[in-house]
């Protein structure tokens, strides 16, 4: 991008035109295909109906193939099985006579059938045609691509596997596993995993989503309205609740990992740090979650932590949606802690029993007076309703065990207050940067890398808390360019 800075919008429009033309052609092709398909389907339906009359058992066969696959002699053996419960033997006879026609469910309890995913090899990356690069990070390269057969535009994430000595990295295995398990309207949809010629060329194919919330917030002239914030929060909380009930911790929730489409939906993305957790929890690495969204227990070096770390990140995101900038922008672990305690107060032993026993808190000294305890959310968010402040303070509760869960937060009265959450369809749309041009380098620290967890020493300064006008210089965000909102 740096090579042609002035023609940024020009190239975009040129690309746009080409894109539009291509899309049109595609649409026509699709239409033709559809007609063809409809004709075929009709023919097939007639044939299928005829077939069904002959063998009722077909549907059954599809679903639990093993049973129908077995030769009938084996099945009869089943009913002759000795030692069956005496109580059920009359029905067994009925069954034995029924086995041939497969109409077993009549007059009996209706049983659930579970569809089974197939076991099939990866498709080739050649099925996709590259369009433009979106972002490059330590984990890999994300680019926009088009599925050649269907014409759909997708996001391709190439995993960085070159330097790996231990085979396929466990983090990427977790990313794919958790992304496959966490199916939700507000979690980015994993389509498939495709591979290239070389064994280390692996790409994750996801739906292409136009924006990420971070870039959007940076470029919006006005922050989101309260009603919009509510909708976004409800979406984020319901996605997180689903992840947590499926025993998945995301461990890197932040605005740049929340994608947003032009239909008012956000999608949680980047499961690079996600993993399954258990109950009781095991010691896990502390090096998770981007610094600005990292919870106090992680900063204090807790080795056992749970889903509450995701909730803290959600609290930070909630505040960021209102403020249009990250809530705690620490420069280091220690600075981050002091920023947190500045706003939320230094924890007391009643507020957070046992926090003094966390590894890092022993080496830290905290100024503890009356003024330093208790949160200052009310004055930081003067325009937020009482329920809003109550939700924020329970999301940002210092004690992880007192932090609200995603399930509970969904039922919080804040979401029932006026203004009501805005319907997704009423959301404004924005021009997509990822869609046509390279994105600006994000001005936020990146997710922690593997390595030893840092030890914290020193004094936690709470300077900003005392001065009346402290932090004033940060209130006004500089001009810069802003996107026109349609």
């Amino acid at each position, binding site marked *: 991008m740096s090579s042609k800075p002035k023609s940024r919008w020009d190239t975009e429009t040129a690309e746009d035109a080409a894109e539009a033309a291509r899309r049109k052609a595609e649409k026509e092709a699709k239409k033709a295909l559809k007609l063809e398909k409809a004709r075929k389907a009709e023919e097939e339906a007639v044939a299928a109906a005829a077939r069904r009359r002959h063998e009722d058992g077909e549907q059954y066969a599809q679903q639990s193939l093993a049973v129908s696959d077995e030769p009938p002699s084996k*099945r009869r053996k089943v009913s002759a*099985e000795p030692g069956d419960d005496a109580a*059920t033997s009359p029905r067994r006879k009925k*069954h034995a006579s029924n086995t041939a026609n497969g109409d*077993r469910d009549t007059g009996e309890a209706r049983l659930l059938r579970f569809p089974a995913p197939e*076991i099939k090899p990866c498709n080739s990356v050649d099925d996709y045609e590259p369009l433009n690069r979106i972002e490059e990070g330590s984990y890999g390269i994300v680019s926009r691509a088009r599925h050649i057969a269907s014409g759909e535009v997708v996001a391709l994430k190439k995993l960085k596997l070159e330097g790996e000595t231990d*085979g396929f990295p466990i983090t990427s295995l977790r990313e794919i596993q958790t992304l496959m398990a966490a199916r939700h309207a507000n979690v980015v949809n994993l389509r498939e995993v495709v591979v290239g010629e070389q*064994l280390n060329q692996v790409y994750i194919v996801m739906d292409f989503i136009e924006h990420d919330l971070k870039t959007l917030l940076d470029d919006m002239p006005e922050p989101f309205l309260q009603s919009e914030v509510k909708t976004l929060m409800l979406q984020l909380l319901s996605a997180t609740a689903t992840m947590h009930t499926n025993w998945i911790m995301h461990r890197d929730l932040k605005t740049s990992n929340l994608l947003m489409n032009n239909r008012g939906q956000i999608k949680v993305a980047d499961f690079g740090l996600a993993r399954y957790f258990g109950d009781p929890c095991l010691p896990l690495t502390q090096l998770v979650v981007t610094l600005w969204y990292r919870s106090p227990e992680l900063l204090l070096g807790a080795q056992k932590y749970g889903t509450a770390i995701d909730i803290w990140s959600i609290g930070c995101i909630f505040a960021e949606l209102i403020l249009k900038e990250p809530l705690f922008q620490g420069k280091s672990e220690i600075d981050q802690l002091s920023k947190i305690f500045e706003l939320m107060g230094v924890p007391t032993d009643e507020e957070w029993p046992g926090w003094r026993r966390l590894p890092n808190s022993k080496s830290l000294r905290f100024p503890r007076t009356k003024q330093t305890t208790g949160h200052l959310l009310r004055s930081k968010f003067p325009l937020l309703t009482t329920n809003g402040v109550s939700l924020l303070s329970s999301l940002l509760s210092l004690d992880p065990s007192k932090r609200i869960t995603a399930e509970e937060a969904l039922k919080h009265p804040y979401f029932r207050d006026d203004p009501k959450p805005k319907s997704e369809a009423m959301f404004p749309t924005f021009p997509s940067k990822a869609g046509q041009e390279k994105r600006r380098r994000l001005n936020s620290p990146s997710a922690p890398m593997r390595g030893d967890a840092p030890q914290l020493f020193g004094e936690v300064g709470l300077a900003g808390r005392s001065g009346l006008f402290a932090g004033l210089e940060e209130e006004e965000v500089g001009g810069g360019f802003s996107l026109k909102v349609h």
Partner: protein
Amino acid sequence: MVTIFTTPLATPSQLSTSPSQLVGIPESIEQKLRLVACRLIQAAGILMELPQPTISTAILLLQRYYLTTSLITSPLLQTCLASLYLSSKLTEHPQKPRDIINIFKYLLSPASPLHPPHLLPKLPENEEGTKKRSQKNLYYVSEGDYTALKSLLLSTEAKILRALGFNTTVNLPYSLAFNYLQSLGVLSSTSTPSSPSPPSNPSNPLQHSKLISTTFAYLTDLLCSPSQVYLTHHPHELAVAGIYLAARDHGVKLPERWWEVWDVERETLGFLVVVLRGGTYGHDGKKVWIVEEGDFEEVDGGEVVAIGAGSVEKEVERLRDL
């Protein structure tokens, strides 16, 4: 929350024509090799003190892999190594390639209990010390062997992932079986607040733990069954079948048509029970010995299976000539 009940299953066409059979390996040899793979992985897992779910996952990954790849393109040993390595990562019990390679080399060496006794190398009749040392030499892995095996392990791991489309979901029936037993009220009177346990149940705590371990034993046995039911049935169906047989073994009476509560058809249950009672491959009490390179042969009291690529090819040739 359908996710814990569903697991990727094989299609009928995948089962009827396996890639190994397409390249000319007879079904009998394929079955033998698959059994040997299960044995080796299970033994290695026990020696490495891995939890059973990790071992079961490795066995299932291998079985699924051979649905799309033949035993010629991907010989057995490296696939065993890679699937155990991969499953140790997937189940969060990561192991080093070095340890896995050492263990498998031991299992295939003459020092291993899986080695056919009549093929044991003649040891010089010396004192105990030298005997022990030479025993150790039997499974020493040289640096060159290690490097070669490790690179095979890593490339096979990548191949397994590709062959499975990176869908490594393996949902095992163990935890479901435990839950089902609990909700049937046969484990202990305190574990079921909702349904009072039937009075006919002998509520003897010893029997409860036995009931669970018998159920789990059936489920683990089923992994090595020649019918590969883990590739054709969802975990809830397997769990119900395991419970059915275990409850019968211990004389525990269960409510009428209890399997329908967990959406298992009587027919399915019956089929699985037959499979379970059919046992694993070595049903006629024959012992299976495993060597890396050598001949497939029948000896009294057992048979020898050679897993090396060369040996397999030789055996296929021999059977073709017959």
